[in-house]
C-alpha cells in the first residue's frame, strides 16, 4: 500500500514534499531522492576523503610551517604526502604544486601572476569566450591595468580554431589561457595542439583544469602545460582547497604572488597551509588516479544512456562537440520549453542546472551556449547533467522518465510548441522585446 502511494505521488508530479526514501513499484528498487546530477557545480565528498582528513583537525593540528617540533613535522609530512598525490595525478613533480584555496584563486594567481612577472616581455594575453568567469573577469581586470586581451570565438561545437589562435599570437603575447574542458558543455579543447603552438612562439600556456583533472587523464608533460589551476571539490574532495601547477623545467615558470605574507609555497602563495583540506585533496587525487578507469567506464555508460534516451525526445539537441567531451557531462536543449520552468517540474527530486537565467535581472541566458551560436531560445531551453562515480542506473532511469514527462507536459502548455506543430515560422513573428 505504502509503495503504491509513494509511486503514484512521484509520477503524478504532485506538490513536492519532504521525500527521503521512496520505493518504486516498477523496478522494485530503492531510490533515494533527491537525485544529484549537478556534479559540475560540485561533487559529493568521498567518505574515504573525509576519513583521511579527520585526524588533521583535532589530533594533528600542527602548522606545517612549524619546523622545530613534532606537531609541525606531522603536519608537514601529511602535506608532503598530499602534494605527491596531487602531483602524481597530473604527471607533475611535487615541487611544482602550489596549494591554493581553489580554482578561482588559481586562475587569478596563474594569469595575474604571469602578467606581472613577464611584464618586461609583453602585455598581451589570448583567451576564449567560453572560459569560466574566474578567467574572463581576471582578464578584464588585466585590461583595466593596461594589458591587452584577445578573446577567441569558439566554433559551433565549442572548440577553438587553432588557426585563429596562431594568428592571434603577437610579439607582445606572453600567455595563452585556454581551459582544458568547459564547465557547461564538457567540451575538451585540443590542449596538446595549443601547447605546441605556444611553445613554437615562445608563449606560456595556462589552462583551467577544474573540470578535467580527476575525470580524464591529464598529464602536464604530455599535454605541454606550463600552468594549470584545479580544485578539490570537483573531484570528490573538500571545498576551499585547490592547486596551481607551475612548471619548473623547460621552461622554468614563475608567477608573482598575489598575496603578501610569510612566503609559503615557494613564495608564490603565502598563508598558513590548510592541512586537513590539503590532506583531503591529496586523498581525492589518489582515489581519482587509482579508480579513473573504473569510474570513467561506469559514468560514461550511464551518461550515454541518459543522453541517448533524452535525445529521443522530439526537438531536443545536444550542445557542444559530442566526441571531444568529458565522460560525465551532457548539455541538452529541449526546444520550445524554458529551462527554469522545466527544472521546476522535478527540481525537488532531481538536481541539474539550466542555461536559462530567468532568475537574474538581465534575463540573459548562458554566455557559453550563446558563444556556440545557439539562439537565445535554445539557450533558454537547456539543461546540464553532470554525473559522478556515485550515480546509479536507477537514478538515471528515474531522471529519463521525469524529464521526458515534464518536457511533454510543458510543451502542451507552450504556445511556441503549438506554433511549431502548426508549421508557423516562429522566427518570422515580430516579437515585442522587453
Amino acid at each position, binding site marked *: 500500500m505504502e509503495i503504491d502511494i509513494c509511486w503514484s505521488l512521484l509520477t503524478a508530479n504532485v506538490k513536492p514534499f519532504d521525500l527521503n526514501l521512496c520505493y518504486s513499484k516498477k523496478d522494485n528498487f530503492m531510490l533515494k531522492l533527491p537525485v544529484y546530477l549537478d556534479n559540475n557545480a560540485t561533487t559529493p565528498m568521498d567518505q574515504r576523503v573525509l576519513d583521511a582528513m579527520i585526524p588533521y583537525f583535532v589530533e594533528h593540528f600542527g602548522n606545517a610551517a612549524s619546523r622545530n617540533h613534532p606537531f609541525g613535522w606531522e603536519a608537514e609530512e601529511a602535506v608532503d604526502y598530499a602534494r605527491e598525490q596531487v602531483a602524481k595525478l597530473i604527471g607533475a613533480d611535487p615541487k611544482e604544486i602550489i596549494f591554493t584555496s581553489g580554482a578561482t584563486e588559481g586562475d587569478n594567481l596563474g594569469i595575474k601572476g604571469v602578467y606581472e612577472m613577464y611584464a618586461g616581455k609583453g602585455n598581451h594575453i589570448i583567451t576564449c569566450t567560453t572560459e569560466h568567469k574566474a578567467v574572463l573577469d581576471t582578464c578584464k581586470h588585466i585590461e583595466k591595468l593596461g594589458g591587452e586581451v584577445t578573446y577567441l570565438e569558439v566554433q559551433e561545437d565549442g572548440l577553438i580554431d587553432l588557426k585563429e589562435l596562431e594568428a592571434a599570437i603577437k610579439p607582445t603575447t606572453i600567455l595563452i589561457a585556454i581551459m582544458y574542458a568547459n564547465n557547461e558543455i564538457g567540451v575538451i579543447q585540443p590542449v596538446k595542439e595549443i601547447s605546441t603552438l605556444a611553445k613554437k612562439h615562445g608563449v606560456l600556456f595556462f589552462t583551467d583544469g577544474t573540470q578535467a583533472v580527476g575525470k580524464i587523464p591529464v598529464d602536464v608533460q604530455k599535454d605541454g602545460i606550463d600552468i594549470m589551476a584545479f580544485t578539490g571539490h570537483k573531484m570528490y574532495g573538500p571545498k576551499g582547497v585547490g592547486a596551481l601547477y607551475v612548471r619548473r623545467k623547460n621552461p622554468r615558470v614563475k608567477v608573482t604572488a598575489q598575496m603578501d605574507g610569510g612566503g609559503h609555497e615557494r613564495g608564490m602563495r603565502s598563508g598558513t597551509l590548510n592541512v586537513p583540506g590539503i590532506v583531503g585533496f591529496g586523498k581525492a587525487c589518489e582515489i581519482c588516479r587509482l579508480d579513473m578507469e573504473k569510474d570513467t567506464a561506469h559514468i560514461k555508460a550511464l551518461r550515454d544512456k541518459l543522453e541517448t534516451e533524452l535525445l529521443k525526445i522530439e526537438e531536443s539537441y545536444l550542445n557542444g562537440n559530442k566526441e571531444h567531451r568529458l565522460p560525465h557531462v551532457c548539455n541538452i536543449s529541449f526546444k520550445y520549453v524554458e529551462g527554469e520552468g522545466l527544472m521546476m517540474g522535478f527540481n525537488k527530486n532531481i538536481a541539474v542546472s539550466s542555461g536559462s537565467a530567468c532568475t537574474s535581472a538581465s534575463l540573459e541566458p548562458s554566455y557559453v551556449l550563446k558563444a556556440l551560436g545557439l539562439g537565445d531560445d535554445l539557450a533558454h531551453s537547456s539543461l546540464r547533467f553532470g554525473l559522478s562515480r556515485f550515480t546509479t542506473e536507477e537514478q538515471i532511469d528515474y531522471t529519463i522518465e521525469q524529464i521526458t514527462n515534464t518536457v511533454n507536459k510543458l510543451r502542451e*502548455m507552450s504556445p511556441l510548441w503549438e506554433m511549431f506543430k502548426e508549421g508557423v515560422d516562429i522566427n518570422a513573428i515580430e516579437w515585442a522585446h522587453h
Partner: protein
Amino acid sequence: MAYSEKVLDHYTNPQNVGTLDKSSKNVGTGLVGAPECGDVMRLQIEVDEATGVIKDAKFKTFGCGSAIASSSLATEWLKGKSVEDALKIDNMEIVEELNLPPVKIHCSVLAEDAIKAAINDYRVKQGMNQLVFEERIH
C-alpha cells in the same frame, strides 16, 4: 530560490490551459514576450458580445514557473469579469497573490500586457479603437 505555494499550485495544476478559436469575432488573443527573453505568453478571452462579460479564458505560456502561474491566475481572474473590469487588473495584484519575488515581477507585467493585448484584439474585431496604454519599463 524557493517558489511560493501558490506558484507551485498553479504550476502543478495550471488552470485554463488551451486554445480558443482565434478567428472567431468574439475571441481576443494577446501574444506577448519573446522566445529570446525566455518568456512567451498567449492569453485568449471569449466575450459574450451581448453583455461584454468574459465567458472563457485560456492560456499557453513558454517560460518559468512564475510566468506559467501568472498566466494561469490571470485566466482565472478574467472569467466572469466584464471587459471593462478586466482592464483594471494590475500586475501588482498578481505579484501579491502569488508572492512573486522582485526578480519575477516581469512575469506579472507580461500577464497584464497579455490581458491588454487580448482585449485590444477583441476591440479591433468588434470595430472599436485600440486602447493606448502607457509604455512601461520592464
